[in-house]
C-alpha cells in the first residue's frame, strides 16, 4: 500500500515510544550483563519482548504501535552507544531515583551504520497494524543531553548529529517505514538557541518523504509556538495530561497535526475514559479532529506493565466515545499525512 492511500480512523491512537519491559526481559538483561546469558539469547529475548508488547498495544486497541523501545535502555544512551565519538562516565539522575548514562562527546562524531533499521524491520514483521511508528532521538536533544568535550559549540555538535539522524531516517524510508517520530524533549530548554535548534531539526528531516512527527515534552510550549510554521514536520506530539491540560491556548494557530498527550505517564492512577474524552473535546476547541492523534504524554516505560496496558486501553475507550460523535457528523477517517501542514 502506498503512503497516499493509507486511511486511519479519525483520532488515530498511538504511543510515544517506550513501553515497560516484561520482568523476564529485565532478568535476562541482568543475566547478560553478569555474563550468564549469551548475546544470541538476549537478542531472542528482545525479539520476543517486542512481540509481547506489540500484542499488549494491539489488544488495548492502539492503531499505530511501536516496538516499545524494548532494546533501548535510554533514549540518548542507545544512540550514543551506536554513533562514533561518544564515551560514558556513569549514570546521572534525571528525577527522583531515575537515571540515565549521560554520554560525553570526546572525539569527532561518526555514523557507524544503521541504528534502528532492524528495530523497524522486526516491528513491521510482527505487527498487524497498517502503520507502525519508529522513534529516533533528535539531534538537538542528543547534543543537549551529552557532555560536549570536543566540539567548539553545541550547535556544531548538533549539526553533525543532524546529518546522522538524516541518514538514518532515509534508510528507514528506503525499507518502507511510513512514520518516524523525532524525539526532542530538550528543544525548548534554551530559548536563546531555538532559532538554530529548529534549523538543525529541519536539517535532520531534509529530503525525507515519509511522515515525520516531532515529540516535545515537559517543556515550555510558549517557546515552541513561534516556530510552529518553520518546523518541517507533519505532527507535533505534545504532553498535556501531566500539566492538567493547562496551556492548551498555545495551540491556537497550530498549522499541523497534533499528537495530543492525554495520559500521565508518571502517575500510577489510571485515567477514566470520560476524562480522556473530555480532554479530547477540550482540545478540539483549538485543533480540528481531522488533525488530531491521541497518545500518552510520553513513553510509558516507567510504569508497571499492567498499568501501562490499562492506561492505553482506557485511552482507546475515551477515544471511542469521541469518535462515535464524530462518525455521527460524518468524520470517520483521516489520511496518513506527510505534509507539514494540516489543512
Amino acid at each position, binding site marked *: 500500500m502506498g503512503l497516499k492511500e493509507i486511511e486511519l480512523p479519525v483520532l488515530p491512537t498511538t504511543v510515544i515510544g517506550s513501553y515497560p519491559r516484561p520482568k523476564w526481559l529485565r532478568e535476562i538483561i541482568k543475566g547478560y550483563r553478569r555474563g550468564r546469558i549469551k548475546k544470541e539469547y538476549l537478542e531472542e529475548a528482545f525479539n520476543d519482548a517486542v512481540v509481547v508488547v506489540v500484542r499488549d498495544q494491539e489488544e488495548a486497541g492502539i492503531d499505530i504501535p511501536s516496538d516499545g523501545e524494548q532494546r533501548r535502555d535510554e533514549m540518548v544512551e542507545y544512540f550514543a552507544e551506536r554513533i562514533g565519538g561518544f564515551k560514558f*562516565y*556513569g549514570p546521572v*539522575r534525571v528525577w527522583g531515583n531515575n537515571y540515565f548514562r*549521560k554520554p560525553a562527546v570526546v572525539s569527532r562524531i561518526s555514523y557507524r551504520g544503521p541504528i534502528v533499521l532492524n528495530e523497524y524491520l522486526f516491528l513491521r514483521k510482527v505487527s498487524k497494524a497498517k502503520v507502525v511508528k519508529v522513534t529516533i532521538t533528535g539531534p538537538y536533544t542528543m547534543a543537549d543531553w551529552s557532555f560536549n568535550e570536543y566540539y567548539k559549540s553545541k550547535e556544531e555538535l548538533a549539526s553533525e548529529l543532524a546529518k546522522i539522524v538524516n541518514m538514518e531516517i532515509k534508510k528507514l524510508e528506503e525499507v518502507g517505514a511510513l512514520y518516524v517520530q523525532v524525539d526532542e524533549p530538550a528543544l525548548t530548554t534554551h530559548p536563546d538557541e531555538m532559532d538554530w535548534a529548529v534549523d538543525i531539526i529541519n536539517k535532520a528531516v531534509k529530503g525525507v518523504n515519509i511522515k515525520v512527527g516531532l515529540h516535545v515534552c515537559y517543556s515550555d510550549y510558549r517557546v515552541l509556538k513561534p516556530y510552529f510554521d518553520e518546523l518541517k514536520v507533519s505532527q507535533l506530539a505534545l504532553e498535556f495530561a501531566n500539566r492538567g491540560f493547562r496551556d492548551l491556548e498555545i495551540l491556537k494557530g497550530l498549522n499541523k497535526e497534533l499528537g495530543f498527550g492525554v495520559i500521565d505517564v508518571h502517575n500510577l492512577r489510571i485515567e477514566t475514559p470520560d476524562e480522556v474524552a473530555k480532554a479530547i473535546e477540550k482540545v478540539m476547541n483549538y485543533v480540528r479532529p481531522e488533525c488530531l492523534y491521541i497518545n500518552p504524554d510520553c513513553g510509558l516505560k516507567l510504569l508497571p506493565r499492567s498499568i501501562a496496558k490499562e492506561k492505553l486501553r482506557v485511552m482507546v475507550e475515551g477515544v471511542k466515545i469521541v469518535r462515535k460523535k464524530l462518525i455521527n457528523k460524518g468524520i470517520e477517517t483521516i489520511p496518513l499525512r506527510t505534509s507539514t501542514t494540516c489543512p
Partner: protein
Amino acid sequence: MVVIKACMNGSYPRSKAVARLYSRLSSGKLSIEDFEEGIRNHTKKFFELLKNSGVRLFTDGMLRWDDIFNPLIRYVNGVKINGLVRFFDNNFFFRAPKVVGKLDISDNPIPKWFNVSISIAKRVFGDDFILKQVIPGPFTLAMNSINQYYSNLHELIHDWRVNVLEPLIKSLVSVGLSVIEVHEPSLVWGNVSSEVLRYGVKEVSELIKFCKHLGVDIWLLTYFRSLTNLNGLVSDLVDAILGIDFFSKDLKRPYVFMEEYGIKRVMLGLIDSRNTLMEKASMIRRVVSRVLDAGVNEVYVGNNAPMDFIPEVIAAKKIRKLGRVVNKLLSSLLGD
C-alpha cells in the same frame, strides 16, 4: 585578613546504591533502621572524600533530597505535590509544589537529619569543619510553585519566607546550625517582571536579616545565569556570601561588578557541575587573584550549581581537584 577556602555546595550525585536504599525501603525489603544506617554510611563516605580532598566547608550532599524542593515541600501545609517540571534548562526534573492553601510548615525531619549529619561530620573531621544546610530560597520556591491560592506573587513569596523557611531555620539553629545555604537560581533566571524581581530581592534581603539576627551566616547561591544581571538590586544582598556561577553564558564584567557594589564575600562557582571537562588550575588561580584585586576579602571556591548533573565519578574527581588547587593556592599566598 583574606580568607580563601574550598567549599562544596548543594547536592553531590546520589549514587545508585543510595537509590537502591530508597527502592528497598519503599518495597518493604529494608527496615527504616537499616535504611537510616545505609544513609549514614553513604554520608560518611562522602565526608571522607571531602576530608581527603581538603574540603572542610560543605553540605551533607543532600542524599535525602530528590531536588532542592523535595522533600521540604512535602512537609508544608497548603501544598500538594504536582507533576514533573523541568529544573530550569536541565535534563533534570522535580515534582512541583502546587499551592492550594495558606502555606505553613509542619513537623519535619530536616533538623533531625542535620543533627545526624553533623555527628557524622564530627566523627570524620573532628571539630575542623563547617556543615551548611541547603534550603531553596523564597523567590525560587514561589517562581517554581503552581499557585492556586494566593492572589498575587508578593504574598506567595512572603509566605514561603515567613511561614516556611524562617521557622525551619529557627528549628535548625536549635540543633546547631551556623551556616545556611540558600539556593536562589530564579533570582537570576529572568522571565519575570522587574517589579516582581524587586519584591523578590526585598524578601530575600529580609531573610538575610532574619539569619543575621539569629547569628546564622547565610550563603545566597545563584546559578545557571549570572548574578551580575541583578545590577542595582544586588546591594540589598551583600550581607550574604554571594554565589556567582562563572560558567553562566551571560556573565559580564564580574570583577567590575564586585568593585562597584563593594562585595566583600563571594562564592566563586569555578567548578562546573554541568560538564565533565576538568577545570584548569590556572583558570581558578587567575579568577581568584582578580577577585582579590577587586577588593573581595572572603573568597570561597566551589561548584557552580548542584552536582546532580554529572556522574558521581566525575564529581569526586572535581572535588579532589578543587581541594588540591585551592589549598595549593592558599599556601602559595601565605608563602608570599
